[in-house]
């Protein structure tokens, strides 16, 4: 019989003594009723008990010269300051992504910069009236211009359409057979 899936982690933590009293009591009540969970708890507890076998030997002492050697090494070293530690941590694993991010930021800044505006010392003076006259006198054949002309008068629209109709049209394409059929085709 298998342990309840939702209880596996809590059972492991119970075996480790890492559950609070309330949760532990609730889980113990469940263990009394559930064979699968009880078996699982027994196995996990067995594993934790086995781990205890490998506890470091409490009778072992460090060799007599250990401290003397250690002090000689420590005096030769100096502690790393927080700043030095930060610099030491900046190996390629940190440096490469940092450079990538920096490059990305520079590119974004450049992309957001507005395009340079062309300013002339003596800008051409174009009056609004002249512009309107230009549009009306030689308008392009667009729907907007037709609407403008129609808004002025129907005569203007008629003139515009007549003018465009009289303009020479591009020559119509002439289709010719380019593939010569063999003599015995028919």
């Amino acid at each position: 019989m298998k342990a309840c899936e939702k209880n596996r982690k809590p059972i492991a933590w119970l075996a480790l003594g890492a559950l609070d009293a309330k949760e532990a009591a609730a889980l113990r009540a469940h263990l009394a009723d559930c064979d699968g969970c009880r078996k699982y708890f027994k196995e996990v507890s067995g594993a934790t008990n086995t781990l205890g076998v490998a506890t470091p030997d409490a009778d072992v002492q460090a060799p007599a010269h250990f401290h003397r050697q250690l002090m000689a090494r420590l005096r030769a070293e100096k502690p790393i300051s927080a700043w030095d530690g930060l610099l030491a941590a900046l190996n390629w694993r940190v440096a490469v992504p940092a450079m990538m991010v920096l490059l990305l930021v520079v590119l974004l800044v450049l992309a957001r910069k507005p395009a340079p505006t062309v300013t002339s010392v003596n800008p051409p003076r174009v009056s609004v009236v002249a512009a309107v006259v230009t549009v009306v006198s030689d308008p392009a054949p667009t729907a907007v211009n037709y609407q403008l002309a129609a808004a002025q008068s129907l005569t203007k629209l008629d003139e515009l359409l007549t003018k465009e109709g009289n303009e020479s049209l591009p020559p119509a394409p002439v289709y010719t057979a380019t593939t010569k059929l063999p003599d015995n085709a028919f």
Partner: protein
Amino acid sequence: MNPTVAETDLPGTRSLLEQAQAGDVEAFGEVCRVYETRLFRQSLALCGNEALAQELAQDTLVEAWKCLHRYNGRCQFFTWLCAILLNRHRNTLRKKRPVAWSALGARDGEEFKNKIENTSSGEAQPDGAAELKEQAALVRRCIGALPAKQQQVIHLRFYVDESLEGIAGALGCSVGTVKSRLFHALEKLRAMNAMHAQFEELKPEE
């Protein structure tokens, strides 16, 4: 240093650590005197060889001195030392390449064989002690088969006897992460334990 220095550290250690963090090497030496034997025991349990254990423990204390500014008091100082010890031990194992039997000299090979025979025959020790040592070695091998992060939490929980909060502080992760790693480690150890029990049952009785 953070005012929440683990209260369970030995009395007097706190002020010595503060002096050491201010750059006083002699104060750090006194701190080392307090912890070096315990650290050596941990190191010996990991290495199984006195010379290597001594080197590993000294390297750990030297590294601790060099980066003492990183100790923030979220765990006991000894737990922090053990976290460094475990990292260094893992790095040592990583660097160490397996040596082929044929690569050993004839004399080394003979010596190694003799050692294995002596160990397996248990001549030098009473049966109980030899068996216990064998079991401990087996457990160590099982722990060694776990992923490095799971080994760390098992070691700190069972052999350094640190709280979950202390382990989280020493490893720089959350308590939830520590609990999760412990669960997965225990799952694997449970399976290994079950396999070993089955193996023992299959053994012919002497």
